[in-house]
């Protein structure tokens, strides 16, 4: 590519002269390329011009403009009056033989142009006026009017100069200034990151920059000044650069042309290499079209990324929204200034709030005041709630408050402070569970009262029953003592049976009394030396042990913390039971063992007695329940019930394992420590 200031003349068609000039831009603009097309200044620019004298005279005098002809040595051959006049010289001055350069100097001096400037003009003429070269410039005269000067060098070396007054463009700006502007424009266009095109009213490419070529890689070879938009696009479409699936190329081309002819909104277009271009075209008032093409690939990529991220966020947000709106709890979030950030519908429903009032930005105070106006609670309650919220958020601790609304509902409000000073509050309608809790409470109280009554009854009944029983026994005794001898044998027998029954009733009453005293007269737990306790129990049972010829083995027992009297009773009843339910003819062998197991104390009392079937297991612990006839085994059926009651009072459990005619094992499990009952 020619980077000098050389001028090339091309003939395009018959009506236009195209001057394509390659400009070497300074510095970093070295690669800049710009093409532009100058509109032809007249129809007279033939390659060769041969005329005779007469015709010449006619031409000169007939021409409206100043006209001068120079030979190939730049000496004036002929000129007309307007020429001299427009040069600022006398109309009748004889100019023949004067060189063009001298005439330039003369005319410049007449215009008052500085000598330096004049020499620039002379140099310019020398440079441009080579065969086929031409240039146009505009001079400003002293009176401010403008003269357009056109000089063209014919192929034979002769020069035609035309001068004419011009309307003047750009005010005082002369052609040199226009040139400078053009150069700056060149630089600016080259520096542009956008592709730039200027199409004239006939849709020919007038001006474009390198970026435009770069953005049209498929047709870079055909982009050249003068090409029409249609030519360019036809080629591009033919090369498949605009192929759209399922659309005829002609259709695509028609579309492109139509869009170019009536540019509307900027539109995006993808290049075959994948890049995205934003094409923006605009019709100018003079019918030309200015187009810019911006590479928006990166923008597009970011846009896509953003879109994907947004979609992700939206999806997440949708999930959150779904969760928020479908949760059974009311939820809202307040910022550090106690202004509402978000609230779900459930929250609004709980308090009967309108979303128009309770909306993001509303302060807690406003919401509470509104809530008071709806009658949810009193202004005092609202004030307390507000103070609590403020106090809690400073302390950064979670708080739970039960709100009793005027309509009777109970709302549990949990305020969870956030790190940024805000609060997440959840609201749960606990009316139903509160009601159930109250019911349970009252039920428990009733049950306790009933239990107490039952115990009181057992105690009072057994206590009061003692009195008449004592009389029965006493008077029975008197009867026997004083009048026994007077009675027949049968009367004696009746008294015996009566006294026997009275004695059984006494034992029953006493057992019932001691049974009821387990809870009413229980003592606080103390540390118990189990070995000593067992020694005491065995001592109390020593007579029966001897009588039954029993062997009682006591293992190494862990100490325990319990009501000592009751523990004594427990072991006494269990060992006593084992002695009582021995097998006829078999000496009782009883073992008492105990150990710590999983944080509990487990005692086992095993015997080799008559045992029992395990299906009766529950029965043996029930008060007054007996598995055996009274005559077989004496007893009231309170012993094991008492044991169970003692165990239960100590938060323990009791179990039994019986094997008929083999023996039974009672397993008592007690917690390690009972601080209180």
């Amino acid at each position, binding site marked *: 590519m020619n980077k000098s200031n050389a001028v090339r003349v091309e003939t395009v068609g018959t009506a236009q002269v195209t001057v394509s000039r390659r400009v070497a831009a300074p510095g970093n603009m070295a690669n800049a390329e710009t093409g532009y097309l100058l509109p032809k200044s007249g129809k007279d620019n033939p390659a060769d011009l041969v005329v005779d004298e007469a015709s010449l005279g006619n031409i000169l005098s007939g021409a409206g403009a100043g006209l001068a002809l120079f030979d190939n040595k730049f000496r004036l051959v002929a000129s007309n009056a307007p020429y001299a006049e427009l040069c600022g010289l006398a109309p009748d001055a004889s100019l023949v033989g004067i060189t063009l350069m001298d005439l330039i100097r003369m005319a410049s001096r007449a215009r008052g142009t500085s000598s330096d400037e004049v020499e620039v003009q002379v140099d310019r003429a020398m440079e441009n006026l080579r065969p086929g070269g031409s240039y146009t410039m505009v001079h400003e005269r002293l009176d401010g009017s403008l003269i357009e000067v056109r000089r063209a060098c014919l192929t034979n070396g002769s020069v035609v100069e035309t001068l004419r007054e011009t309307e003047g463009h750009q005010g005082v700006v002369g052609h040199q200034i226009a040139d400078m502007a053009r150069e700056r424009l060149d630089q600016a266009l080259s520096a542009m990151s956008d592709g730039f095109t200027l199409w004239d009213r006939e849709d020919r490419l007038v001006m474009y920059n390198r970026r435009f070529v770069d953005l049209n890689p498929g047709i870079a070879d055909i982009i050249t000044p003068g090409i029409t938009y249609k030519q360019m696009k036809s080629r591009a479409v033919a090369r498949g650069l605009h192929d759209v699936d399922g659309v005829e190329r002609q259709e695509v081309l028609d579309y492109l042309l139509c869009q170019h002819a009536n540019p509307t909104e900027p539109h995006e277009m993808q290049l075959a290499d994948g890049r995205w271009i934003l094409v923006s075209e605009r019709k100018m008032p003079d019918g030309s079209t200015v187009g810019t093409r911006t590479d928006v690939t990166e923008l597009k990529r970011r846009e896509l990324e953003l879109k994907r991220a947004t979609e992700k966020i939206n999806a997440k947000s949708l999930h959150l929204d779904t969760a928020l709106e479908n949760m059974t709890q009311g939820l809202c979030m307040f910022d550090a200034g106690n202004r509402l950030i978000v609230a779900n519908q459930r929250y609004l429903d709980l308090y009967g709030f309108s979303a128009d009032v309770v909306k993001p930005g509303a302060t807690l105070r406003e919401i509470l005041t509104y809530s008071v106006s709806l009658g949810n609670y009193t202004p005092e309650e609202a004030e307390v709630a507000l103070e609590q919220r403020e106090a809690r958020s400073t302390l950064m601790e979670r708080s739970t408050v039960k709100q009793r609304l005027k309509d009777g509902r109970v709302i549990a409000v949990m305020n969870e402070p956030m790190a940024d000073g805000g609060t997440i509050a959840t609201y749960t309608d606990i009316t139903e569970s509160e009601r159930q809790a109250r019911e349970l409470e009252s039920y428990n109280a009733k049950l306790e009262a009933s239990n107490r009554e039952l115990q009181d009854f057992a105690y009072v009944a057994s206590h009061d029953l003692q*009195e008449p029983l004592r009389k029965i026994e*006493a008077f029975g005794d008197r009867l026997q003592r004083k009048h026994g001898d007077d009675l027949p044998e049968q009367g004696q027998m009746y008294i015996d049976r009566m006294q026997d029954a009275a004695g059984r009733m006494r034992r029953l009453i006493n057992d019932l009394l001691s049974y009821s005293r387990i809870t009413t007269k229980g003592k606080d737990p103390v540390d118990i030396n189990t070995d000593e306790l067992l020694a005491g129990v065995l001592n109390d049972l020593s007579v029966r042990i001897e009588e039954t010829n029993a062997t009682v083995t006591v293992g190494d027992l862990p100490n325990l913390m319990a009501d000592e009297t009751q523990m004594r009773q427990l072991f006494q009843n269990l060992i006593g039971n084992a002695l009582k339910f021995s097998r006829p003819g078999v000496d009782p062998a009883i073992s008492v063992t105990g150990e710590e197991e999983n944080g509990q104390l487990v005692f086992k009392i095993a015997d080799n007695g008559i045992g029992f079937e395990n299906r009766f297991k529950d029965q043996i612990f029930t008060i007054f329940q007996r598995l055996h006839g009274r005559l077989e085994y004496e007893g009231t059926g309170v012993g094991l019930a008492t044991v169970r009651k003692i165990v239960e009072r100590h938060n323990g459990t009791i179990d039994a394992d019986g094997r008929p005619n083999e023996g039974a094992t009672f397993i008592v499990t007690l917690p390690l420590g009972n601080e209180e009952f």
Partner: protein
Amino acid sequence: MTLRLVVADDDADDRMLISEALEESKLRNPVDFCEDGVDLLEYLRREGRWEHLKNEQLPGLILLDLNMPRMDGRTALETIRADQALKRIPIVILTTSKSEEDIIRTYNTGVNSFITKPVTFDGLMDVVAAVKQYWFEIVALPPSSD
């Protein structure tokens, strides 16, 4: 001079049994029976139905039941101990109660003995015999009047 003995018990059966037990123990001292605390205080002060004993000396011993209507034994005990004329009379509690609280409280109020009513008549006989022997044959009682 033979000292009198007064028994305060609301239970007619018990009064009869005690009376019979005292008879069988061959107690020669006269015995009076009151039915509650109010009756006992009237007896001691020779008021109401006891006016006819105005000239009799105060009893040498009181056998007192605790659970009685109108005025119970505890209140009667406190009233007697607070009365200058009566406070020296020895009092033996004879009751069905075995409660520790009663035992402690009555001893604190200056009772001389606390006996739980025996269940059988034989037991009652033993108690009555012991009381008779101790209080009327061994112990020196304070003068019955100022």
